[in-house]
């Protein structure tokens, strides 16, 4: 167990004309070494949820336990929490500010009051992990391409050595190849560095291919939670709340609904193609 949310409620814009309950009675457990995707349309509460995980927003009621300790306890160190649960926001432009890439990535470690050597090691380690080469170390982060900026932003959070990496739409605005690069990076961090990954995503295709667990949010509530293969069975329900399933999965549902005897829970192009071929050959 890494993070446990119990009966968490959160109201946005309290006392204003736009008051809205963003999260309603959330109960969740994020396990060690999961690769979780949170999906839901804008305003479903997913952004608020991930900000609760590292204490940037505070729940109105309910409790959040990190390794069994209540993060709202007086003697709980928020600074420690924020280093253990690293949060990468959607737009890298919101965090890049230093004159060079290295200095920017070092911002986190320097805030941690570590020994200089450790800070330096983790800075360069993080840059290596995200695949930013030496030739870019002294470049201004603002001069980088969109994909590179995103990598540097992730490195800036990785450098504080989090156990859990939380990312808000890490692929937004990237072209297909750029998306794949970021995903492969996350997969590598997950499998090699054993970092628990939680990401918000809009692309069901990407979720199906990479995530081990999907949490579906709608109007401040968790409506579905489980392996992609199980969650994507509920195509009709997902469509009702403005979401969907990967086209490869949808195709199998569509075939089965019309009486074809195919396995329905295919997630990727390859799975669907081999299933269809098997079905076509069957007499």
């Amino acid at each position, binding site marked *: 167990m890494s993070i446990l949310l119990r009966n968490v409620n959160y109201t946005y814009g309290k006392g204003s004309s736009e008051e809205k309950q963003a999260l309603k009675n959330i109960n969740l457990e994020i396990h060690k070494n999961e690769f979780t995707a949170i999906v839901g349309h804008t305003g479903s509460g997913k952004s608020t949820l991930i900000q609760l995980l590292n204490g940037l927003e505070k729940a109105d009621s309910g409790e959040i336990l990190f390794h069994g300790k209540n993060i709202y306890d007086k003697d709980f160190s928020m600074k420690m929490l924020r280093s253990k649960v690293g949060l990468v926001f959607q737009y890298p432009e919101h965090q890049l500010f230093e004159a060079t890439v290295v200095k920017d990535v070092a911002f986190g470690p320097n805030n941690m009051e570590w020994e200089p050597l450790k800070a330096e090691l983790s800075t360069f380690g993080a840059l290596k992990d995200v695949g930013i080469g030496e030739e870019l170390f002294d470049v201004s982060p603002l001069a980088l*391409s969109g994909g590179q900026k995103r990598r540097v932003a992730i490195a800036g959070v990785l450098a504080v050595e989090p156990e859990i990496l939380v990312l808000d739409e890490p692929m937004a605005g990237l*072209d297909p*190849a750029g998306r794949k690069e970021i995903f492969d990076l996350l997969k590598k961090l997950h499998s090699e560095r054993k970092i628990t990954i939680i990401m918000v995503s809009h692309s069901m295709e990407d979720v199906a291919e990479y995530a081990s667990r999907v949490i579906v949010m709608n109007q401040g509530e968790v409506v579905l939670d489980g392996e992609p293969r199980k969650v994507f069975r509920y195509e009709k329900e997902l469509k009702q709340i403005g979401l969907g399933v990967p086209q490869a999965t949808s195709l199998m549902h569509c075939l089965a609904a019309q009486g074809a005897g195919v396995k329905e829970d295919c997630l990727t192009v390859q799975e669907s193609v081999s299933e269809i*071929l098997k079905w076509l050959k069957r007499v």
Partner: protein
Amino acid sequence: MKEQAKKYIIEAENLAHEYARRDENGDVTEIVRALDGVDVQIREGSFVAVLGANGSGKSTFAKHLNRLLFPTEGTLYIDGMDTADSENTLAIRQTAGMVFQNPDNQIIANIVEEDVGFGLENVGVPTDEILLRVEESLKETGMYSYRRHSPNHLSGGQKQRVAIAGVMAMRPKCIILDEATAMLDPVGRKSVLDTIKRLNQKEHITVVLITHYMEEVTQADYVYVMKQGTVACSGTPGEVFQNVGTLKECRLEAPQITQIVQELCRAGVSITNEIYSVERLAEELLRLKSGFKG
């Protein structure tokens, strides 16, 4: 359709654009050729998509269509007007309206209807006419009930529809969406696409959709794929998606349905490659299967 009778509204011939990159002292360090010999012809009333990865030159191309940039070499005519001639600026901008990527950074006024009227005010349309046209284009884009709202309280998709209304109020012949869906969530993206599709079909507005989302181009009549400032390939969506290798070189990827169709073809299943929707493919497969049986 009287396709032959329809003339080209956009004609680019050997279009090139260069700009100089400068260092801190203002000295030129590098000449960047963002567009390099682009030939594009778009017929009036058609729906054309320009696909390309980040940095492929597709946005530079879009900015030429509105005379926000003009050719270094080659020519570009918008509805017969030469974009090299600065006299044509206002006329071109009224003929070809532009919707940009960031919804927040293109809404000028603090109230929805006032923003929609902004362009009309600029070209000196009389007040009564402005009110009429604003109402009309807000209704066209389904944003009429928000006319007195502040843009800050709208969703991304709604803001983009306000921007589209602002363009439509100018009664343009052509509307260019420069990655206008890139910052939206799937719901917002769909609402914007539905709106422009309707405008294309009902009002016969020429649509130029610039994007890197492959699913969006399946509805287009014609697709141009850009790479490093050149047109890498073009054709109907089906033709373009077939060039898997070219797409990959362009840092793009065909939608899953197209990939499945192609994989099936490769495995020897006889199926047409002009299928873009789940329902159509399922239908086709079921027909094949019953053919096997019968």
